[in-house]
């Protein structure tokens, strides 16, 4: 029972982690909480569903295509709603409100285009379940966790090894100095939004398939929890987002299983508050130090 719940929790937590990465990367560079991210996650799931059902594209193509489309959506969110504010040196809270606006806009756009009712996400492939002594593990759960691990390794390699990844870190650590190095920071920011949105789309699609439903509001709670995961791990720190995501996923599943399903959402935020009271910078966050 415990192991079963843990596996379910890791599955859910993987999706939170992927979504949390988008929050943490954008925050790392712009010191901005991008509240449109939950809606972007939902949009990714919808696009994939529409490509499969309406356009009859095979799953793998639809999956990749929705990553690209959602990634571009992420870039557009920045270019249309945030970049102009940055150019005007608007206060951060203005940008924050702008992202909330984007979130409401996207939810309503999806309702307008495809209706507000919950949609069935078709079982694209039935992989069956593994049964070991009464403990059930569906192969699809393994696919979700595996995909997350591969993507996180890939992302780490991009950020640590590639020129663009290093430019991302430089931009996050000191934007003005990055410009002086010849880094086009606007392109770096665009790329960051692309990457974050594409990862959120992966999470959205996986969760859509896992629960076999998608609805226009699905990004709201997941978005909040992924944000909580990013803060829990230490916002701006990439491994923190992953650990925070997994932790919230596991703990909320355990709470639902052992206490009451109704406490599922409450527990995630209770943990967040508890950790932040003890460690305000989050689990892996480091207090900022400046040398004079």
């Amino acid at each position, binding site marked *: 029972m415990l192991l079963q719940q843990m596996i379910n929790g890791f599955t859910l937590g993987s999706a939170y982690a992927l979504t949390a990465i988008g929050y943490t990367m954008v925050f790392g560079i712009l010191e901005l909480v991008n509240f449109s991210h939950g809606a972007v996650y939902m949009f990714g799931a919808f696009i994939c569903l529409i490509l499969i059902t309406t356009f009859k594209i095979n799953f793998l193509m639809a999956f990749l295509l929705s990553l690209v489309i959602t990634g571009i959506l992420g870039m557009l969110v920045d270019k249309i709603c945030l970049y102009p504010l940055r150019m005007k040196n608007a206060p951060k809270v203005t940008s924050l409100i702008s992202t909330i606006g984007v979130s409401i806009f996207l939810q309503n756009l999806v309702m307008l285009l495809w209706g507000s009712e919950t949609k069935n996400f078709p079982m694209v492939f039935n992989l069956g379940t593994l049964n070991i002594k009464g403990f059930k593990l569906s192969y699809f759960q393994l696919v979700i966790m595996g995909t997350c691990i591969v993507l996180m390794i890939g992302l780490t390699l991009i950020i640590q090894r590639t*020129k663009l990844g290093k430019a991302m870190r430089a931009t996050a650590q000191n934007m003005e100095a990055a410009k002086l190095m*010849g880094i086009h920071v606007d392109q770096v920011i665009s790329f960051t939004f692309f990457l974050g949105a594409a990862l959120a789309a992966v999470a959205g699609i996986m969760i859509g398939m896992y629960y076999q439903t998608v609805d226009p509001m699905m990004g709201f709670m997941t978005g909040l929890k992924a944000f909580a995961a990013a803060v829990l791990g230490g916002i701006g720190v990439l491994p923190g987002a992953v650990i925070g995501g997994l932790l919230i996923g596991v703990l909320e599943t355990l709470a639902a299983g052992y206490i009451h399903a109704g406490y599922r959402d409450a527990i995630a935020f209770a943990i967040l508050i508890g950790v932040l009271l003890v460690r305000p910078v989050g689990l892996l966050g480091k207090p900022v130090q400046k040398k*004079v």
Partner: protein
Amino acid sequence: MLVLSNVHAFYGNIQALKGISLEIKEKEIVTLIGSNGAGKTTTLKTIAGLLRPKTGSIQFNGEEIGNKSAPEIVKLGISLSPEGRQVFPRMTVLENLEMGAFSRKDKAEMNGSFERIYALFPRLYERKHQAAGTLSGGEQQMLAIGRALMSKPKLLMLDEPSLGLAPLLVETIFQLIREINEQGTTILLIEQNARMALMIAHRCYVLETGKIVLADDAKHLLESDAVKKAYLGE
């Protein structure tokens, strides 16, 4: 090489530069001195493209650069080592230097640049895998200068390279600045330590509240009574 004519620049509504005109010739060391708020750093930022001049022109080797972005200006061969060093603290020394070479495409020649930097600053070689944030102030300054050199600039601008350093280290840094200049890089230098700056510079401009009030050979200014009184503390 670099000619500023009547450059005006603003931070929001506050005018920081009120018609700066100056010229830097190839192979020179030129220094800007002046009290806090005179517009020295703003002048460098405007040349580097971090700030757009409102009016006036900035020409680099005959090309107007006043409307170009910072990355474009780096590519043309102007590099700024900013005030307060501004190294990337959670990147290694090596990665910081790599970032300095970001705009370069000549991968083959890049090794030569690394060697040149390591020859100038052996300390950086010893610490190349260490995070820049853990370096001492002097080492960070070396890294900031080294990083600025990685773009192979024709003109290197240094903003307060001796700020916060121990006197002995200040000597070393100035020695290195002279060496970099002798290797063929033109230098534009801002310094609190006006005496040191005047000693290594060929020419000097004195700024006061966004205007140039004096321009002369560095040697003359070292002996000028007015400058001694105002900036050399005698």
